[in-house]
């Protein structure tokens, strides 16, 4: 069993999906959290000058979703068949889109009026429509693929909880009963429940 070392800053950010997968998989890893002044020295030695990175057996992987998929795959959490794996991947990618839309249109918007308008649109139009699509993709039992917990379910929980702190109120799952089940399945997974209780409290 290789030793895994995950390096990121001291926050949830883009590393949290990996930490959640490690938790669900019950896989041990070293959770390295860098101070900002430690980053410049490490940066040129990373594949794309970014964090998170995963180191194991002398190999370095980057890109949070690729790392998450790799660890999930080893633990059987990435989908059992190629089509199930594609379903997992498409939901993950959809969640990335939802996060990117928030980042590009709202978080990085300097004009306060535009920002408020975009936020309203995001919460009142975009998210309900997207959640409606996702609700159709989830099973009655609350799983996006293969009727058991996969990386897709974890990605859903992770991204919704990532944008929530930046909104006036948390995104509502009212009217999306299957998505509520997805969230419940994720938070009640024993490994994830334990991690959610024990993880460091950080501003992001």
């Amino acid at each position, binding site marked *: 069993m290789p030793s895994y070392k995950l390096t990121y800053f001291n926050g949830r950010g883009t590393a949290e999906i990996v930490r959640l997968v490690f938790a669900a998989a019950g896989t041990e890893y070293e959770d390295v959290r860098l101070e900002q002044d430690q980053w410049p020295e490490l940066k040129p030695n990373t*594949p*794309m*000058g970014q964090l998170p990175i995963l180191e194991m057996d002398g*190999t370095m*992987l*980057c*890109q949070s*979703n*690729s*790392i998450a*998929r*790799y660890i999930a*795959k*080893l633990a059987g959490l990435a989908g059992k*068949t*190629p*089509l199930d*794996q*594609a*379903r997992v*991947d*498409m939901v*993950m*990618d*959809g969640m990335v889109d939802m996060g*990117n839309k928030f980042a*590009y*249109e709202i978080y990085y918007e300097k004009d306060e009026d535009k920002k408020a308008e975009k936020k309203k649109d995001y919460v009142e139009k975009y998210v309900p*429509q*997207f959640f409606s*699509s996702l609700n*159709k*993709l989830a099973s009655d039992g609350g799983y996006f693929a293969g009727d058991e917990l996969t990386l897709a379910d974890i990605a859903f929980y992770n991204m919704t909880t990532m944008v929530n702190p930046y909104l006036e109120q948390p995104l509502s799952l009212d009217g999306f009963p299957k998505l509520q089940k997805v969230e419940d399945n994720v938070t009640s997974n024993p490994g994830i429940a334990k991690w959610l209780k024990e993880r460091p409290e950080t501003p992001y």
Partner: protein
Amino acid sequence: GVHCGACRKMSVYELHYFNNRGRAEPARLLFAAAGLPYRDIRIQSEQWPEYKLKLPMHQVPVLEVDGTMICQSVAIARYVAKVTGHAGKTDLEQAKVDMLVDGIDDVMTKKGDYVWHEKDETRKMEKKTAFYETTLPQFLSHFEKLLRTNNGGDGFLVGEGLTHADAWFLCLADDILLDFPDIFSPYPKLAALVERIRTYPGIKEWLAKRPQTPF
């Protein structure tokens, strides 16, 4: 079901997109490289408002496999790569392919932001300049270095053969070369890689016959 050589030839593949290369082209390149037949559906814009309602996330591309719909361009390309043996040989190789694809996807998303989403002309030019002066050179120098770690950089991006990372890279290259034909001059291994992918059996023929579209 199990995907065996015989089974996959019997599956029916339909790729739904607009009449562009855009985010469907990596999958088209992979189908071409494998000589795997598929229906290359190109939607007319008038059809779009009704068409999108049938799609899982109201977006294209969508790959239909024997009636099951998969969306999201990266997920689709990875699936086609798996079916055609171009996804990477081991779990670790697949992860390396995936991380390179994510890197390319990030850059394409950044470009898409100023091309399609930024409406203010001044901001658009500022973002375009930042893209070509900072984002792209940083990305290309990382990739030149990563390519060189794979057998000296004279093959493909990961492992021994073509993977979906190479398909994505050609699509990005085609796009950026339109704006800056000399963009690869500082990156000789990447320039050679682009030619290697362009002349790959199956891809070469597809490039010659594919619909010519501006993007």
